[in-house]
Each structure stands twice: as C-alpha cells, then as structure tokens.
C-alpha cells in the first residue's frame, strides 16, 4: 500500500467533521500522531522504497477529489521538510484545494513548486531536467496525466511519460504520485501502457449505497486488491472527508 496516500487519508480522517479512524489505537483529533503502530491503517516502509512508499497511480473519475488528495500529499511532504515538492499539472490551480486540512505553517506552501507544462513535450522536457534542480526535490506529483494523453495518442506516449516519471523519481530517490482519469472504454490507447508501469494503484469509484449529504459526492477508495477501505465525500466546494468503511458500515465487519 502506498504510504503517502495512507498518511493523507489518516490526516483527513482526523478532520473534526469527518469520521475519525475508529477502533483501538486509531488517530483522533487530539492525537498528535495520526498513525500509531496499532492503528487499523499501518504505514510501514516497504523494502526498496523510501518513507513515501512505491510510486502510486491514483485513478478516479473527474471531480472525485484527486487534485485535493494530491495537494494534501504535497502539503504533508513539504511539512516533512526533506526538500522542495514538485507539483505538475497541465492547468494552473485556480485556488488552493480546500481539503479540510490546511498547512500547519503557511510558509510550507513555499516549499511546493507548481509547474504547469502545457504539452506532453513540455512535460517530458521538465521531467528530463529534474536532476538539474537544486536543492533536489523530495517528492514528485503529477495531477491529471490523462490531459497529456489525448485519445489520438498511442501507448508509446503513455509509456514514455510514465517511464521518465519513474526514472526521475528513482534518480532523485523521491516519492511519486500520479493521478489520472482512466478511459471509459476499456484499456486501449495510451493508458494500456501507463498501468503496466504503476503496479501500485489506488482506485476511486462512485459509491451508490451510502447516504451522503446532498452537496457531496461519495467515492470508494480501494488499493490494488480492489476491496474498498475508505469512503471519500467530496463536497461542492472541494472539501474532502474520509470515512473508514468499517466505521461507516458496521454490518460489513
């Protein structure tokens, strides 16, 4: 499981209006340590990767809170103070995503470097020159990979961007999270290649059965085993709330 996203989910689960992680040892709004050793969500370093875990592909439909989750991951990485965080997106963020949890220190945001390459070629150029950055980035995030992969492009484009992302992250020894909207019509096209480069994936898909506030949309969050572990509520203003599924639906436990 991807450590960085777990930390994001734990942080959002601590939000006072959201349902905190329940059960023995779970984090609480007063708990300074969001993930304790006996928490239901254990965040352990995976061998061969740094504290941020393996590269992660976050898949989900449009407006399902992916940008907010990525931004939150950027804030958490910046708060660790290991170095600048690179946030790549084709379109500039119109406003700071209101995730429900802000940076503890406003200066933290200065550690996040927002880059907006407009074309796939520009993105590749940025990725191929990341080793020139000083100080070296500690975390790499790409929001909206699909915007660099129009349907007319082929698997070569998807593979090239994915491979260069992985190669840059491997050289920099930094974390990598990429978000994307998967194609609606199966696995053909550029995405066929993207998924083979990211064995660790997190999937957001609409939750139909849960009662949600009228202003919110609900999504299941599942990692590679496809079993949903959390529910994400995305409000109209973009604010995110996380509910662990065991607490949400006791009958399932």
């Amino acid at each position: 499981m991807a450590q960085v996203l777990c930390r994001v989910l734990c942080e959002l689960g601590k939000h006072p209006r959201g349902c905190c992680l329940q059960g023995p040892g779970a984090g609480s709004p007063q708990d300074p340590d969001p993930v304790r050793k006996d928490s239901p969500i254990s965040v352990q370093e995976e061998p061969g990767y740094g504290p941020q875990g393996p590269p992660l592909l976050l898949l989900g439909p449009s407006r399902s809170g992916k940008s907010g989750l990525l931004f939150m991951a950027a804030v958490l990485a910046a708060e660790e103070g290991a170095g600048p965080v690179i946030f790549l997106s084709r379109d500039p963020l119109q406003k700071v995503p209101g995730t429900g949890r802000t940076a503890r220190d406003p200066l933290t945001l200065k550690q996040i470097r927002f880059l907006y390459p407009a074309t796939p070629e520009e993105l590749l150029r940025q990725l191929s020159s990341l080793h020139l950055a000083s100080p070296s980035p500690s975390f790499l995030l790409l929001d909206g990979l699909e915007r660099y992969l129009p349907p007319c492009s082929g698997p070569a484009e998807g593979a090239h961007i994915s491979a260069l992302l992985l190669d840059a992250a491997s050289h920099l020894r930094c974390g990598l999270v990429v978000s994307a909207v998967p194609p609606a019509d199966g696995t053909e096209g550029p995405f066929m290649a993207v998924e083979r480069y990211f064995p660790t994936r997190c999937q957001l898909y609409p939750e139909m059965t849960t009662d949600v506030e009228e202003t919110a949309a609900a999504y299941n969050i599942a990692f590679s085993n496809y079993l949903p572990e959390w529910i994400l509520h995305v409000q109209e203003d973009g604010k995110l709330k996380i509910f662990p599924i065991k607490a949400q639906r006791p009958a399932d436990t």
Partner: protein
Amino acid sequence: NAVDLGAVLEQFSLVFCRLKFIFGPMALHALDLVDLRSVLHITSPCGRSTYQVTGSSGKTYTCYKSCHYCSCPAFIFSVLRKNDSMLCKHILAVYLSQAMGACQELSVSDQQMCDILLAKDG
C-alpha cells in the same frame, strides 16, 4: 588449458540455451549487439545515468536505467501494443552487457543528459 576451455564452452552453451529458451531469436540479436559493443552507459556529474544502444540499422535508442523503456519501434509494437514480449533486444543487450562488463562508458554534462533522456531517436 583444453579442459578449462571445454568447461567454459559447455557453461556458455548452457547459458545460451537458457537465453534462447526464454527470449527466442531475440537472444541472438541481443548477443550480436553485445559483440559489437553497441551498449553505451552514459553518466553525468549529478549521478544520473542511462543507456543508449546502437541498433542494427545504425539508429541509437535510449533505454532507461530504472524501468523497462526503449525508444525503438519494436518495444512499442511487441511489448506495449501486442504484449507478446517482456522486452526488446536493446534492453536485453543492456542486461547482458551489464552482466558481462561489456558496456562502453561515456560521461556527459548534466545539461546534455536532459537531451539524451528525452529519447529522440538519433
């Protein structure tokens, strides 16, 4: 001496049979590239490194160090599109050259490394 040479040849024959069993005719093409010293290991002062392989047509292709990617058409067609092969002969040649210590070494500047990583076919 003759006994040692025989043992070495036998060992080589076994390794080659295994390579051919796993990779098919690609193994022979990759060994050709190793023979021709076609694999270039490129490093820059910051520590970034990558590989360039000169194919049988004379074109050079970039193979990344940390994951399977090659800018050649066979990688796109056989590996990505048809999914009937794990890698192309250039990536296999990189693995074999690494194992046999047969890579040529080249140092470039960090700026030059950017252009090489862009993997525009040469």
